[in-house]
């Protein structure tokens, strides 16, 4: 606190340093640093220019087609699984490459979520007071971290291929079928009412967030915290249900049926996707488990003792005191693991899942435009990775200790 008589030095503006004119002399540090920076930038520009010019000249002299014109050409390449409609006879290479991105995102996003859940559970299990649980978690981490990922992917893929054929598939009733063609599951037939119910859920989500914020403000102001959960329940469950019921509560399930060579109808998780997802999640979870464990252990023992002295249960101490502090240690290395998982998904080519590398590889082979193909793959991974980094950095700043 500053008093009336003394002036806080932090409150007065620092006196400006006397302006010195830069001299054109090697002994002047400002001049020196400018010369070096100009030189370095110049060298980089020269190298890039040389490489680009040389590439162009060599491609031209070898009469190799260049440019991205092939993106609008009819693709003709078959694609095994696609989240959007694809027909080789009308779709273009551009469409095929977008499917590649979607397939990569499909495995990366779900993989990151599942690996985080599994890794956190295993990491906490390693610290369990139960000897067996702790040791099992330790074995999990040590074994899976030490085996090459490619080997694990091939293992899972071979395992899934060893399942019986579609006609002898393992099944739960007439709904779920497990065979070497993948897992067939019943699929709800999507109707407009469902979209509206989903919209109501989103509205409920925003409402709950606003309500929770208001109740937190109330707590800060009065010390009394209004309960949130009844309102949340109403907004998140009752509201969407009411919308759905009002529109006639449509509900229709499409069951997979064996016809000809394969199952028709219903949803499918292919062995290729399954093997890739299982492999990536299980492998990455072993690293995440270690990060979670080290994060929790980085919180001083005194925090536990202080929490317990206040009468909180062990679970409460973990949730309210230890985990929030551990998160600050956990988040930065976690970002690297998310990036690793995303990049490792490119191993999909080995087991026939058509991610962006697989489709771009086929495209560059069918069109012969290797440089464009590789540039495309690099741009896609760079974009995805930078997005993950940006989000995680934002989240890290959000939970960071606010230093005053």
């Amino acid at each position: 606190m500053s008093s009336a008589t003394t002036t806080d030095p932090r409150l007065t503006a620092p006196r400006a340093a006397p302006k010195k004119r830069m001299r054109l002399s090697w002994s002047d540090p400002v001049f020196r640093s400018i010369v070096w920076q100009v030189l370095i930038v110049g060298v980089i520009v020269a190298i890039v220019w040389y490489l680009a010019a040389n590439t162009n000249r060599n491609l031209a002299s070898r009469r190799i087609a260049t440019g991205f014109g092939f993106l609008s050409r009819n693709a003709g390449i078959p694609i095994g699984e696609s989240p959007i409609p694809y027909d080789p006879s009308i779709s273009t290479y551009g469409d095929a490459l977008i499917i590649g991105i979607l397939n990569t995102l499909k495995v990366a996003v779900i993989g990151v979520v599942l690996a985080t859940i599994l890794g956190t559970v295993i990491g906490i299990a390693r610290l369990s007071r139960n000897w067996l649980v702790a040791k099992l978690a330790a074995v999990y981490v040590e074994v899976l971290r030490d085996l090459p990922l490619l080997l694990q992917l091939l293992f899972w893929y071979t395992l899934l291929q060893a399942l019986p054929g579609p006609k002898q598939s393992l099944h739960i009733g007439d709904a779920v079928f497990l065979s070497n063609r993948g897992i067939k599951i019943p699929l709800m037939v999507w109707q407009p009412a469902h979209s509206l119910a989903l919209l109501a859920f989103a509205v409920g989500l925003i409402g709950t967030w606003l309500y929770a914020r208001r109740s937190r403000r109330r707590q800060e102001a009065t010390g009394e915290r209004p309960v949130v959960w009844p309102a949340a329940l109403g907004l998140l469950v009752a509201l969407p249900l009411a919308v759905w019921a009002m529109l006639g509560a449509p509900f229709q399930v499409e069951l997979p049926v064996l016809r000809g060579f394969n199952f028709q109808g219903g949803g499918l998780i292919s062995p290729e996707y399954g093997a890739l997802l299982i492999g990536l999640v299980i492998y990455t979870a072993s690293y995440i488990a270690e990060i979670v464990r080290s994060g929790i252990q980085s919180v001083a023992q005194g925090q536990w003792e202080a929490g317990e002295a206040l009468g909180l249960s062990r679970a409460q101490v973990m949730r309210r005191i230890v985990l929030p502090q551990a998160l600050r240690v956990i988040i930065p290395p976690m970002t690297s693991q998310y990036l690793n998982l995303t990049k490792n998904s490119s191993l999909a080519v080995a087991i026939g899942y058509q991610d962006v590398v697989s489709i771009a590889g086929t495209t560059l082979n069918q069109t012969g435009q290797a440089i464009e193909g590789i540039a495309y793959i690099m741009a896609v991974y760079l974009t995805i990775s930078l997005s993950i980094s940006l989000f995680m950095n934002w989240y890290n700043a959000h939970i960071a200790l606010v230093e005053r």
Partner: protein
Amino acid sequence: MLRTTRKSAAALIAGVVFSFGLAGSVLAQTPSASGSATLDNVRKRGELLCGMAGTVPGFSLADSQGVMRGLDADSCRIVAAAALGDASKVKFVVTTTQNRFTALQSGEVDMLSRSTTWTLSREGNLGLMFAWINYFDGTGFLVKKSAGIKSAKEMDGATICVQPGTSTELAIADYYRVNNMKFTPILIQDINEIQGAFLSGRCDAYSTDASALATFRFSQGPKADDLVLLSDIISKEPLGVMVRKGDDKWFDLVRWSFVAALTAEENGVTSKNIDTFADSKIPDIRRLLGLEGELGKALGVDQKWAYNIVKQVGNFAEIWDRNITPMGVPRGINNLWNKGGLQYAPPMR
């Protein structure tokens, strides 16, 4: 498995090679001693760099001694015999279906002999050209006998194993489109993985060139009888050897090496009896053996180039009988034109 991960690496390397423009690419611009920069490089190096698959029985697969055997491998040898006078001076470079063109474009290999289908867009866009067809093939289907499939037309809704980046995947997509049927492709780069997926039952059918299907079936030994090669051939797949554009003299040498092997077959000249023709009166044979004319000079190689091909590797029939016949594949349309086939050698004069 290494090959799969090496695919994009090879493309990257190609990018780097293009970017820095190695000595080879500079040489390619300037005509030299033989008139062919590639031939000069091969001579200076003392060996021919030849891209092949290395995984296909009958076409290119190392035997128990580590020697590369097969039609594609011998296709490299005849060019080495013509260019260097020694058929053994070939360095076989393993390429995948995905990095093969890049390997040739970037100068990693001097020629590509990898059961590659001659198509317009490959010749038009890749900066490469086809010198000769060494196998007239077509896309076929291999199915399990237990599936009871008799014709490709019965395979609506089937799951088909195929290697990505091949003309096969395009041919199948076209075939299903024309016949208004649907299929699910399983695309795996590594040939052992894709064959494993078919054998495990992941796919209903395995599709590639009928020749490769026949040799794959043959390689299954006693289990070959469980597999059926459908009689439907759904596309034309002329498999050829490729060279880079821009070096026409090298193209000539590769093309005429095949013509020499075919001409020898046509005239009954084999590796065993070639020396008995030394005093032959037949002009075709005299020119083939280099006793008459200046054909070697025209190609920029030794006058005995064709003699070396036949003596060291054999005529086309010998090459076929050595590599393809043991796989149980009949010569069929691959026979000489005067025996009902498509192989027609232009006159060597």
